[in-house]
């Protein structure tokens, strides 16, 4: 019988069927970070259990860590304690641990792919909802809670109910300047923040296969913002070329045997999905969120909708709350909005390709005097690569604040990078929720290119606005 990609991975990882609704699924890679894990290790010890497969587990610090200087941890008991607990728990159970600033450290979802830990046809879990990122590699990857972390540590499996399948076919190709982030925002606007609940979204179609691996990671990363359990993309030459480079750089070139097995990790042509939609990539444009959930986005040609533009009562309620929190009026356009902060980084857009886009827009310009442009690399490896390419010089010349340490930073507001009430940002991160970047902070989610152009002009803008703006100045 024809199978979808995620069904193939599920079947290959089913250790045992447990009753009618649940399967015991083997986990190939388990990623840990400092915020959501100490309770799992405590319970493990209390029950006199151990970590079954430390060799399939890796720990890093990312959520609460400082990005300007490691010295900021001195005297910061709360954050230091979370970091120390993960380091000590990892040492106790023999789990590799990446300390802040050391080679290999970075945001979990940035370091795992760059270290070759995510392979096609595998299962990947992490105590973080953006684990969906790794679906870019044709892996079944999803976020779990702390109790499930404990279950994986103890058994290397999870008891799971089958996911439903949802194929989003993106036909034609994206117009120049329209990125995977814009595509993700367009999809979430169409399906809503709950449209993917209980489903694995498989992204298919020519527009998807022309995306780089970094862009695919951005798209799969945002799957959870559409409510999906996971996002996934079938293997193609782009996937294999990326993995060949990663493994060659680590001194263990892939064999043809490795590679050939991976080509089967695509959905069968006649596989049936529980849900399907088709999106025309050619009709898409750069998008930015205006509200307080990721489905509330508009393009530069649209204006902020009125409550009456929504048919659904719950969306009307959400829009009303968003106007108040974001201090916006229906009818305003993106270009009407002045900003104080621009954040480039996160597991969504903190990779080398994103930093290259930002440098390309910034080159020859200065950051607007009213704006603080914060650029946080996703990993030590991304930072070092950016420096090798001279991107840091472009950032400094433009007046941007390029941080030496990687981490989640202003995406979740758990370290020193937080916004004040009433401040307005353009962020390349994933969530524009109330208070996400600081109590009362107003977040507009956008692509790296839009973020960079906005930083220069001081209002929400896109790169094509720079020419007219330059003449007007």
């Amino acid at each position, binding site marked *: 019988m024809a199978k979808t990609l995620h069904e193939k991975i599920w079947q290959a990882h089913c250790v045992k069927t447990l009753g009618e*609704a649940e399967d015991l699924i083997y986990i190939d890679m388990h990623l840990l970070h400092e915020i959501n894990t100490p309770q799992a290790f405590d319970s493990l010890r209390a029950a006199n259990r151990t970590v079954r497969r430390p060799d399939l587990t890796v720990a890093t610090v990312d959520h609460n860590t400082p990005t300007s200087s490691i010295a900021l941890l001195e005297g910061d008991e709360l954050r230091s304690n979370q970091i120390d607990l993960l380091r000590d728990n990892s040492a106790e159970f023999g789990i590799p641990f990446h300390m802040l600033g050391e080679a290999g450290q970075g945001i979990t979802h940035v370091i795992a792919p760059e270290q070759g830990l995510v392979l096609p046809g595998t299962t990947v879990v992490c105590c973080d909802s953006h684990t969906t990122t790794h679906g870019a590699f044709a892996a079944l990857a999803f976020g779990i809670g702390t109790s499930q972390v404990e279950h994986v540590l103890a058994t290397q499996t999870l008891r799971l109910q089958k996911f439903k399948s949802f194929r989003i076919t993106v036909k034609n190709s994206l117009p120049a300047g329209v990125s995977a982030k814009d595509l993700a925002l367009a999809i979430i606007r169409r399906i809503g923040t709950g449209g993917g609940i209980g489903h694995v979204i498989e992204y298919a179609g020519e527009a998807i296969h022309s995306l780089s691996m970094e862009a695919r990671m951005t798209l799969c990363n945002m799957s959870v913002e559409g409510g999906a359990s996971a996002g996934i993309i079938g293997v193609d030459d782009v996937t294999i070329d990326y993995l060949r480079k990663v493994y060659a750089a680590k001194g263990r070139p892939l064999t043809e045997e490795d590679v050939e097995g991976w080509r089967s990790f695509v959905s069968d042509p006649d596989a049936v999905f529980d849900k399907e939609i088709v999106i025309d990539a050619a009709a898409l444009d750069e998008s930015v969120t205006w509200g307080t959930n990721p489905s509330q986005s508009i393009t530069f040609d649209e204006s902020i909708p009125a409550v009456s533009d929504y048919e659904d009562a719950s969306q009307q309620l959400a829009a009303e709350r968003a106007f108040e929190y974001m201090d916006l009026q229906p009818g305003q356009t993106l270009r009407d909005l002045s900003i104080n902060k621009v954040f480039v980084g996160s597991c969504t857009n903190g990779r080398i390709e994103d930093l290259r886009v930002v440098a390309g827009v910034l080159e020859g310009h200065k950051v607007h005097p009213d704006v603080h442009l914060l650029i946080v690399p996703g990993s030590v490896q991304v930072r070092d690569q950016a420096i090798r390419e001279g991107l840091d010089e472009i950032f400094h010349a433009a007046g941007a604040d390029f941080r030496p340490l990687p981490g989640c930073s202003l995406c979740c507001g758990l370290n020193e990078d937080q916004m004040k009430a009433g401040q307005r940002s353009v962020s390349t991160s994933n969530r524009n929720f109330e208070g996400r970047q600081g109590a009362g902070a107003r977040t507009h989610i956008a692509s790296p290119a839009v973020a960079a152009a906005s930083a220069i002009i001081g209002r929400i803008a896109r790169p094509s606005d720079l020419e007219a703006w330059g003449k007007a100045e």
Partner: protein
Amino acid sequence: MSRAQISGCGVPLVRNNVDTDQIIPARFCYKAQRVGHADSLFGNWRQDPSFVLNDARYAGNAILVAGREFATGSSREYAVWAIKDYGFKVVIAESFGDIFYKNAILNDVLPLKTTEQGVETLWEILGRDPQASIHIDLDKETIMIEDHVLPAIMDEHFKRKYILNLDDIAQTLEEIESIKAFESSRNRHLATTVHRGV
């Protein structure tokens, strides 16, 4: 009384899309324990004196009634821990975020779905009568309030899991021979983080 029958009073949280960043903002997720998070529940919203948790008429009520897409977003289990610590035993909503739903069952908080009309009815009654009794019967799949009988929606699998409240890990460890057999046939070329790490 069996775990399939639960009675109590409710708190109407008249909002949709309440993500886990609202349930417990990240800056409150600093305690390395599963308990002690009651004061962090809706940490930002509780600064507002008019927020429903600050309304003394609802103090001690153990059933939270929210709207659509409750607890989507971040996977933080702190969201369930805060809800449980505060004293809620049940959350009724039209739909839930996937990760929260599982986290809730694993922490013995009942995540119960009802229809949009069911939520509206509960909000309306709880809004005018904070002491209105809610009776949940998982066997009959009903939520009763005043003279209304609303659907209690939960699939059999999760219902059984909640009612039996078993230790998942202990159960899985009984399958250890199957896990070992699976591991012995697993592709040895797959990535590892130590020993054969790239």
